[in-house]
């Protein structure tokens, strides 16, 4: 692997982040703070503790997950979609670089940005609620694995999308609903038994549960199931990307 091209792509993508600081960092932080005000302070004060954790603190991992998933997908998809849209992708495709280098550059930058964002939101939330992190290493592992996996998914969406509408489609119609229904704001124990079973089909439940376990040691599903789910996602995304590059799908006619 030649590191110069990887660095060139990575740095260019990070420069784009700096240029769009308001949109890429400030706005997610503000919207997360709004969640805290509404759910944590206004509604949370009327909800009793969940498994010994105050409601405000309970939703922190879910909120970070929500931002992590949506931002990873949107960063990575925009990063590869824009050159495709503007035509400047000719340069990437004609460069003497492997597909691996392209993916590491783009997905690495998108994931870095999401991880940074996750940490900023974590810091912000500590201003609102008392936080404890029981398993910091696991917390970081989940943070990084989720950011990478969903940046890979975003990369796939960016290649698949042939218009700005499609770029928004998956985050809006799939990721956000699944996260809201994935136990970000509640424990699935609070659902009627039938819906508990249905909810287990939602992959985001496993991510949120594992991440929350790393904070408070409480979870809806076992840690093993959470790790298995994220690895499954990771492998599926990698396989799809390998297929995209092998066939030239939507990149090379």
């Amino acid at each position: 692997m030649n590191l110069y091209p990887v660095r060139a792509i990575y740095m260019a993508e990070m420069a784009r982040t700096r240029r769009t600081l308001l949109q890429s960092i400030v706005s997610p932080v503000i919207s997360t703070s709004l969640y805290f005000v509404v759910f944590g302070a206004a509604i949370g004060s009327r909800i009793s503790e969940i498994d010994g954790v105050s409601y405000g603190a309970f939703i922190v991992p879910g909120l970070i997950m929500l931002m992590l998933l949506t931002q990873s997908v949107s960063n990575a998809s925009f990063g590869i979609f824009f050159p495709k849209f503007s035509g400047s992708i000719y340069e990437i495709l004609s460069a003497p670089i492997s597909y691996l280098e392209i993916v590491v550059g783009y997905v690495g930058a998108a994931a870095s940005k999401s991880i940074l964002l996750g940490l900023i939101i974590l810091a912000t939330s500590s201003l609102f609620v008392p936080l404890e992190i029981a398993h910091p290493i696991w917390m970081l592992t989940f943070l990084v694995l989720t950011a990478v996996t969903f940046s890979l998914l975003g990369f796939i969406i960016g290649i698949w999308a042939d218009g700005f509408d499609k770029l928004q489609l998956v985050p809006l119609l799939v990721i956000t609903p699944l996260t809201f229904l994935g136990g970000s704001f509640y424990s699935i124990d609070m659902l009627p038994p039938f819906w508990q079973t249905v909810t287990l089909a939602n992959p985001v439940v496993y991510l949120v549960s594992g991440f929350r376990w790393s904070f408070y040691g409480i979870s809806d599903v076992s840690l093993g199931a959470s790790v298995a789910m994220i690895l499954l996602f990771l492998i599926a995304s990698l396989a799809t990307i390998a297929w995209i590059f092998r066939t030239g799908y939507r990149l090379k006619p």
Partner: protein
Amino acid sequence: MNDPIITIEGLNKTYEGGFQALTRVDLTIQRGEIFALLGPNGAGKTTLISVVCGLVNPSEGSVVVDGFDSISHYRQARERIGLVPQELTNEAFETVWNTVSFSRGLFGKPPNPAHIEKVLKSLSLWDKRNNRLMTLSGGMKRRVLIAKALSHEPRILFLDEPTAGVDVELRRDMWNVVRGLRDNGVTIILTTHYIEEAEEMADRIGVINRGEIVLVEEKAALMKKLGSKQLTLQLQTPLNVIPSALDQDELSLAADGHELVYTYDGRQEEEGRGISALLTQLEKEGIGFKDLHTRQSSLEDIFVDLVKERS
């Protein structure tokens, strides 16, 4: 001279949907030459370049760049190539300096500010190095694309319709840059449908039409072989018929006998006829003329004939 730097063999490209853009293309580009690929819109010029540069997968056939197969050894093949695309595409928010440096990194080269500076200066972009691309004029953006293509010191430069929509001054500047590159041993392949460009710049010319290479020839030989010249004499007194002593196929009368037109190419001179013989004979016959001018058929005429012939 036989030192090929690009060898294309049996190249076929059929796009999804069945459109055959290239048909059995065989083409050899010599090291250090300027090769012009001429053809009407949709002839396959851009597809051919795109296959060589790795933007389009070939359906069949092979491309070898400086000894390296363009697919199995794509790294070695592609790092030798710089591509200036036809469309003006770039990252609107980047500065000139950053985007050109980015290209160098992308092509796997360590940073070299001195080289970037040299490239920007040679393209009169140095003053604009901190400008964002969106603030530049179309001509300046075109220069930026060339700078990007030269950032990694390629041995081969592809220019896909480089002067489309570019004013005369910039076109001249660009040709100076291209000549400078050629003097440094860079091989240049350009596509164009401005025939004057090919005529002025190229060493060899290839004509592509409907995905097939119709002809490849040294420019001078092509002009000589296919280009005919016309000598028009404005006569002092109009003629009704051409005097029998002068009669030959190449002569004709025009403008109601006021003009005598002589069409010739390389052959007559070799056969001991040609212009000087004609003029001597005219004097002998007592035919005087007021004025004369010659016109050489341009590549454009040749090209139109060729394309018409095949279609």
